């Protein structure tokens, strides 16, 4: 078991989320950065979509009550085991009574803690991903207890030598497709959208990232239509809203761009004030 001594800023259990309930209005949810979560799992020989702990900006302080192997990937938040620095993107043995904690955020925004065999929690509608109104709790709290399997002593890290290319953590080019309403923008607006530098507003979370700079426009709201994580909506006031993994299934704002799937991972490692540009790749 892992006992949560301090929950950190915003920590949740996530796998790759729920795909089969969009028709019931249920968000996808799932890890924000699939690349990092899949890598942490791969180090331990877990399947890519195995449940992990997603931590945001400030990591949690966690007490392990039995031995296991862990791997941390994504943002570098200076992890420490019993106050001694440990390496990320590598399997680390943990003993009963060990305390995992995190320090300064060095790179990225979200980090993933994978445990050998995965975190065990209730599957709701096919997924362990926490979401308000779907799972019993939607964010980790102090004193929560997280279950995982007993250590399988036969385990040999199969991918011990694979390297994690973390260059994407500092990429600020966001690759996009034209959104369904892109062509309703004037040539000037299209040009501005694809050339200007935008900064991430303080309103950024698992549901959406808003941008600070506005794009004045006179587009009318659309008849409520379909969106996906990565859909960039433009409000009448000119606000750009990039939908993320916990977004609603439908929306009524014009959809001017759509992030490539890999760019959703890139954006989920960004936070307030950081700059991005949109790069029409497709």
């Amino acid at each position: 078991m892992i006992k949560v001594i301090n929950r950190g800023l915003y920590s949740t259990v996530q796998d790759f989320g729920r795909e089969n309930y969009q028709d019931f209005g249920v968000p996808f949810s799932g890890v924000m950065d699939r690349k990092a979560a899949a890598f942490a799992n791969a180090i331990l020989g877990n399947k890519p979509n195995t449940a992990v702990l997603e931590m945001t900006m400030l990591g949690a302080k966690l007490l392990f009550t039995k031995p296991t192997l862990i791997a941390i990937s994504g943002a570098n938040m200076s992890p420490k085991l019993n106050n001694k620095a440990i390496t990320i993107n590598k399997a680390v043995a943990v003993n009963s009574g060990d305390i995992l904690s995190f320090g300064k955020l060095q790179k990225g925004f979200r980090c993933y803690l994978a445990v050998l065999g995965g975190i065990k929690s209730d599957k709701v509608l096919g997924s362990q991903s926490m979401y308000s109104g779907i799972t019993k709790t939607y964010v980790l709290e102090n004193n929560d207890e997280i279950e995982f399997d007993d250590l399988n002593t036969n385990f040999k890290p199969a991918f011990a030598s694979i390297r994690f290319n973390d260059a994407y953590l500092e990429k600020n080019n966001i690759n996009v497709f034209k959104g369904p309403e892109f062509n309703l923008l004037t040539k000037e607006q299209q040009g501005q959208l694809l050339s200007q530098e935008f900064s991430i507003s303080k309103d950024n979370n698992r549901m959406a990232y808003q941008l600070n700079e506005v794009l004045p426009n006179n587009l009318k709201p659309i008849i409520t239509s379909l969106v996906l994580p990565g859909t960039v909506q433009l409000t009448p006031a000119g606000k750009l809203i990039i939908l993320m993994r916990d977004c609603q299934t439908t929306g009524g704002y014009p959809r001017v761009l759509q992030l490539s799937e890999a760019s959703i991972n890139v954006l989920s490692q960004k936070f307030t004030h950081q700059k991005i540009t949109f790069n029409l790749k497709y």
Partner: protein
Amino acid sequence: MSYNLTYKQFNERSILIEWPKTIDEDILNDVLQFKAKIKALEMFEITVIKHAYQSLLIQFKNNITDVESLITTLKSIYQSQTEIISFQNKIWKIPVCYDPFFGIDLANLANKKGLSIETVIEKHSQVTYKVYFIGFLPGFLYLGGLDNALETPRKATPRLQIEKGSVAIGGNQTGIYPSNSPGGWNIIGQTPINFFNVNKSEPCFARAGDGIKFIPVSKKEFLDIKTLVEHDVYIIESEVIND
């Protein structure tokens, strides 16, 4: 199937298909037919297929390699002469208590529309609404068919907390809040019925194409039904529509 559809690539592995930009039952039926046809064919590996008023989004398991030929295939599926797939659609009878205890905006709305409270209730409960799709919140039904006389703008300042089961009017739409949530619609009543249950494999009983009819009930009846719902023994009255 004879609408002029547009096909757009949405991302690496998704296609968006759009019908003319209107809210219309015939369009909904066409969307649902096309969706059912694609599902029945089982020729693609599809991970998500979802629709709204006049659009259909298909997310494939793998990235699209040849978008032109995929769109050509989809077009020929749309045009193909196949038997109309019939759905067993139902009309669900949803008890609603319009008592001012629940319908906190009812008097105000009636006043603004120059109608009596009784007339508002009558106009709201005599229609059979069409379920177009579920979106916004888990279990939130987008319903068509609100009487024009009841059209009321959303409140300028949304409420931070609207109680689960609240029945409300926002613009030309009416709907039921399936869970406690913030919202800007005008609340005219409350239903004790659960529109979303995570413990069921079909978490919402209603489906696109179904009908919803509101049945006015007293506060006493509301509380009785609520007790039955809480013990999972209430059976929602329904009748099958034969299209």
